[in-house]
């Protein structure tokens, strides 16, 4: 267990170094003058002038050599600081704290909804592999996964906001505004997790130990609960870790579409505005979330299958 935690901790440090350095390098090699970019985001296109850009350059010391700027960021990071946003001048940690909360809620709701939709569907399809339900679920999953979140979100808005007038198409603050963006993400997630669960259940259903459990006379419900779910759970839980990628990518698009103030929204704006500390901070937090999530997946897998821990 200690080794697992230590491994993930080292991974977290590596993530910080690589993400910080990479973001810095990528933003620097992007075309365009950073002072003009930052001034454009601060003052808007109508009020942007060369003088404003030069004032920004002087204020932020953008013409200083790049190793100095990068080393300063790493130095700040080592002390737990992420620097100040170049656009707003506020500490990046404060801006992220304000935007991370909504994003985490959105991601958590989406994940929970996707499990509520995907797992029962996967279980039912897997137990009756090849049935009409299984095929229907496959078609549904392919269709939902093929739709980009942007299109899916618009379709949901048209149905639930315009046609039915149940839910607001944008905004934030209460569960009502949260419903459509999290459903948009959840449907994309459930599309795949239902298939992973279906395959895992179907595979377990075909094993010798599963058939033996049935043969020795256990009732169907008990077999599914004791032998089916636990064994089928491991690939499903492992896959949850991979889904974080979809979630992060989806959050960026969905937040912009639904005018939801999260970290994805912040990242898009920071990249456009060349706000290096914000890009580094947002990417770092996303990277660390990824590490944390994988740690959670590892721990959950060990709980499901104690042999994983004993083998090390």
């Amino acid at each position: 267990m200690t080794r697992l935690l230590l491994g993930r901790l080292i991974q977290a440090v590596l993530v910080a170094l690589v993400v910080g350095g990479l973001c810095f390098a990528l933003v620097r090699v992007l075309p365009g003058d950073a002072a003009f970019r930052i001034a454009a985001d601060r003052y808007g296109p109508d009020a942007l002038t060369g003088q404003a850009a030069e004032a920004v350059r002087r204020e932020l010391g953008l013409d200083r050599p790049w190793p100095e700027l990068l080393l300063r960021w790493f130095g700040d990071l080592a002390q737990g600081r992420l620097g100040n946003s170049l656009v707003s001048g506020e500490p990046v940690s404060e801006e992220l704290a304000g935007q991370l909360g909504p994003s985490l809620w959105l991601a958590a709701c989406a994940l929970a909804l996707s499990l509520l939709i995907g797992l029962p569907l996967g279980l039912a399809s897997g137990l009756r592999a090849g049935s009409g339900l299984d095929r229907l679920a496959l078609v549904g999953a392919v269709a939902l996964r093929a739709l980009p979140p942007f299109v899916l979100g618009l379709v949901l808005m048209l149905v639930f906001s315009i046609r039915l007038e149940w839910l607001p198409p944008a905004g934030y603050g209460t569960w009502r505004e949260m419903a459509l963006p999290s459903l948009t993400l959840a449907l994309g997630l459930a599309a795949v997790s239902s298939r992973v669960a279906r395959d895992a259940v179907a595979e377990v259903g075909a094993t010798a130990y599963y058939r033996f459990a049935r043969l020795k006379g256990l009732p169907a419900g008990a077999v599914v609960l004791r032998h089916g779910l636990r064994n089928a759970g491991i690939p499903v839980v492992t896959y949850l870790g991979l889904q974080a990628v979809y979630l992060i990518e989806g959050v960026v698009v969905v937040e912009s579409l639904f005018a939801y103030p999260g970290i994805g929204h912040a990242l898009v704006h920071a990249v456009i505005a060349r706000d290096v500390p914000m890009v580094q901070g947002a990417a770092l937090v996303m990277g660390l979330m990824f590490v944390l999530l994988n740690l959670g997946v590892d721990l959950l897998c060990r709980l499901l299958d104690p042999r994983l821990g004993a083998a090390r």
Partner: protein
Amino acid sequence: MMLVLRSRRGALHAALGGILGGALRLAGLLALAAVPAAAEEPPPPGRTLVVVGPWEVGGLDPASNGHAFTRLEVAETLVGVDASGAPAPGLATGWTVSPDGLAWRFPLRADVRFHDGSPLTAEVAAESLRRAWSNVGPLARAPIAAITAADGAVVVALHRPFALLPAFLANHTAIVLAPASYDAGGRVVRIVGTGPYRAAAVAPPLRIDLERFDGWWGGRPAIARARYLAVGQGETRALMAESGEADVVVSLLPVSLARLRRSPKLAVQTVTPPRTRLLKLNAGSPLFSDPRARRALGLALDRAGLARVLLRNPGLGADQLFPPAVAGWHVPDLPPLTRDLGEARRLLAEAGWRPGADGVLERDGRRFAATLRTYSAWPELPPLAAAIQAQAREVGIDLAVSVGNTSDIPARHRDGSLDLGLVSRSFALIPDPLGTLLQDFGAEGGDWGAMNWSNPESAALLDRLAVLADPAARAPLRRRVVEILQAELPVIPVTWSELAVVANRRVAGVRADPLERSYGLAAMHWATP
């Protein structure tokens, strides 16, 4: 050797420890951040009017975000504008100028209080304006020598006469804030203004909550609570209006308007703001230094067609720089810019351009090929650029379209690498368009205006207009400036703009403001009890 190694390892340890400590603190931040979302303050009881617009809330600095607080009537300026767009009394009851034109006096209203209860005094107003003057913004460009307070008035001393001073003071960067708005370092940490609404919560990047301020000098607004939501996607804004979640939605895409007009729940208003989409040309490049080449490109454009297809309103084709709604600067009898491909080809041939094998013009072995740069901050610009590309090709001009960031235009203006840019230029930032014209078409050109072009006559006329106060004397000068710009085409007008405001019929008193200075919340009231 051993010692060196150990110390190096020690340093490594310390560094690693520091990074780990930082990572742990970050993890703590993650944990902390998870809490406040659930604790989002519940909407206050009673009806809240929801205004939706495209502009994000960037922060509190008036230089970058003052427009949010003037539009929501949280903060006010010394000078306002009247219905015709001319400067009018605001927090100042009027103004007087010394005979030499160098000292301006703005006496203040007597009964004005800030949202924290403190009175508006001339000292406070002068201090607030001095901060705006030293910040980025139009005041920094005005010939101001000093801003002081005397006998209940703000007194502005100038280096040279400048008739535009009241218009400059009406700009959103010149909002008057209470001393409590600033921290010790002079940064704005909260917005304590004088307007009919006070900012109950400013939640960048997307929300501002407002409450009625009962001590406003102008009376008591009917709407007690309001909320501004920034929604970047035009499609989402239209859906907010359609679903009834928003009461007032500002700035809608032309494609959404026809659908919204059919809804019995909604009232759609459109106005023509002083905003023109134009081609900014590098008149120093060999391609466009000849005025005949600029005129030819102008003659290649089917403005009404562009406006009909892309903006759904053929009346928006810009046959001169200013739309008819901009009184004093639109010249009704000016020969309009039209499409005439034959004349365009003739002018280009006269300038020495001959069609090459592929139809693209050539002169001395050089093709008439240029990059047309634009940006996507305004969603209509990239499709307009593509249409202009196709129309220019008909007269043998080969344009490559490049869509980038807003800042590419002024940055490339500065380093001289711009051939051609399609921009959306507002002449309303300072209520008198002259404020923007001075910036764009002065002797040295401007970031968003002329590039490597200057005309001594128009530059002198603009300078003269900047000091001339008599309206009757100004009119012929304005006309001459517009004539020169139309003849020389340092920029080629393409289309004018339309601002659409959609209101739910449960709200009354909504008025679209062509200058985009105010949503007019204080004048609205609920149509249904």
